[in-house]
């Protein structure tokens, strides 16, 4: 049995305080990185560890960092703590238990890339966690892990918490940058990518909270060890969040590649009393749905792509037989029509039309051709928008409609 890495000490009381964190070996990785390693050595280790982004896209963190150009401009780190993907609650959970592990990862990342200002962009609803992070930040300043000349290395770093205000789109990295600059969260056209032109037009690294949580462990234990916790091309463990119709919903830290069936039936205790499995959304609402007979699958980026779905934020939503698929589709389409930023027509209009059609079906006024209209409209969104929200809406809608077409047809 492989060990827990990120959540190992989560049972400890007051782990969010710096003294308790340091007693568990906290900030040793930062000391090692700043005192004994060169930035390029850190970069090499993170690259070798095959740490893939935990926000959803799975882009290798080390490679992302290496895209930042050598320049005299200031560089920024933005930690994406916007966690809005329905079904996802892992970042809230790990930040509230162990804010210092995030700060330690931020220090190492910033030192490696040559960054002196980092922002943690946290969703507005997480006010309590924002306060906890701010307390942790002031503890870290007091102990000399933040501020000027950290650990006498000559390296300076300031960290600020910036709260969002209720917009799913701001979890998209370029919308997050716009929002941080004090604008509406309308995604930018890429290229240029944020690594070269990001926050305030300067080179910027944007990583998810859980990605940054892994950094100190890679530095302390090495890339080889990290890969052994997961898969060769997908190093480390993953924080799976299980919700829906299971006996024990919650957070499960497991090696990447653990089977979805085991996560639901062994770790989360199986279905609630008397409930039968109908379908699973494996990676947050934007991930295409899997039917009950498709759950014998490894939970890693590549396996889920092969199954035409995605690991996304590793948020597993378990749906039972008695839940009508039309109700699921109603919630899904309402969400995307509400959260579209409105910038691209296919997404703005398409999602709202699909939602109206689904509501019409639910009211018993559906027409036979409605099912094909949903498919046509969703296909028109896919690939035709500036940012990934378009696909994030189209793909689950297409998969639900195709895989449960018979049931949907029974409602019209």
């Amino acid at each position, binding site marked *: 049995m492989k060990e827990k890495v990120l959540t190992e000490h989560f049972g400890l009381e007051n782990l969010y305080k710096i003294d308790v964190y340091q007693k568990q070996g906290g900030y040793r990785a930062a000391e090692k990185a700043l005192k004994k390693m060169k930035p390029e050595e850190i970069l090499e280790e993170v690259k070798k560890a095959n740490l893939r982004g935990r926000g959803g896209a799975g882009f290798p963190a080390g490679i992302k960092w290496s895209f930042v150009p050598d320049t005299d401009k200031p560089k920024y780190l933005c930690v994406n703590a916007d966690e809005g993907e329905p079904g996802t609650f892992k970042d809230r959970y790990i930040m509230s238990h162990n804010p210092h592990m995030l700060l330690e990862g931020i220090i190492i990342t910033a030192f490696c890339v040559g960054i002196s200002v980092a922002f943690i962009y946290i969703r507005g*609803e*997480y006010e*309590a966690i924002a306060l906890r992070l701010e307390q942790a930040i002031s503890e870290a300043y007091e102990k000399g892990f933040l501020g000027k000349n950290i650990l006498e290395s000559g390296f300076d770093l300031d960290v*600020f918490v910036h709260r969002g205000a209720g917009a799913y789109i701001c979890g998209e990295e370029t919308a997050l940058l716009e929002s941080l600059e004090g604008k509406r969260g309308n995604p930018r056209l890429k290229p240029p990518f944020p690594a070269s032109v990001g926050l305030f037009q300067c080179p910027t690294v944007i990583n998810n909270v859980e990605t940054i949580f892994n950094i100190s462990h890679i530095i302390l234990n090495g890339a080889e060890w990290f890969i052994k916790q997961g898969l060769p091309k997908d190093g480390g463990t993953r924080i799976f969040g299980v*919700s829906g119709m299971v006996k024990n919903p919650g957070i499960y830290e497991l090696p990447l590649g653990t089977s979805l069936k085991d996560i639901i039936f062994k770790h989360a205790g199986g279905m609630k009393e008397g409930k039968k499995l109908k379908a699973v959304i494996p990676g947050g609402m934007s991930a295409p749905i899997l039917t009950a007979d498709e759950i014998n699958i490894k939970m890693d980026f590549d396996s889920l792509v092969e199954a035409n779905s995605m690991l996304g934020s590793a*948020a597993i939503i378990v749906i039972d037989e008695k839940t009508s698929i039309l109700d699921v589709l109603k919630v899904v389409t309402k969400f995307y029509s509400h959260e579209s930023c409105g910038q691209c027509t296919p997404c703005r209009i398409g999602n709202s039309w699909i939602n109206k059609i689904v509501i019409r079906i639910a009211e018993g006024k559906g027409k036979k051709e409605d099912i094909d209209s949903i498919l046509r409209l969703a296909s028109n969104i896919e690939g035709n928008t500036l940012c990934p929200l378009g696909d994030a809406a189209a793909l689950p809608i297409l998969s639900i409609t195709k895989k449960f077409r018979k049931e949907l047809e029974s409602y019209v």
Partner: protein
Amino acid sequence: MSPEFSEKTKKKIEEIVARYPQKEAAILPVLHITQQEFGSISAEEEKLVARILGIKPIRVRELVTFYTMFSRKSLGKYHIQVCSNLSCSLLGAGNFVDYLVEKLGIEPGETTPDKKFTLSTVECLGACERAPCMMINFNYYGDMNPKKVDEILDGLK
């Protein structure tokens, strides 16, 4: 009388503005403070924020109308926000909202006549392991049911 920030709040705002290379980047944090201090952000508060940050009021309006956590109309003392997204719906959020509608006598988006409660349905709050969940102001409550919410609401003065 047009609204004004207290001296203490002005200091806090100065501190926040100093974090960013551009003043405008402080709009969201300043709007959070405004919402908290005045309970809502009407045209008057928009002007106040614009003045303090040296920007046009329209820039403030752009954000107030984009971000759902800012309210242009005043809210009740307690803002109940019930998650209506998937994990919560699977576990009965719909019935739970119906119960609150009946109990409070208002529809989602409305405020009770005594200005005590505002009821809203919102998208995923990120507490899916405790579905169905809700927030009252900034406090999270999970595993909700009618009995539990009765106790919570009865305890609010």
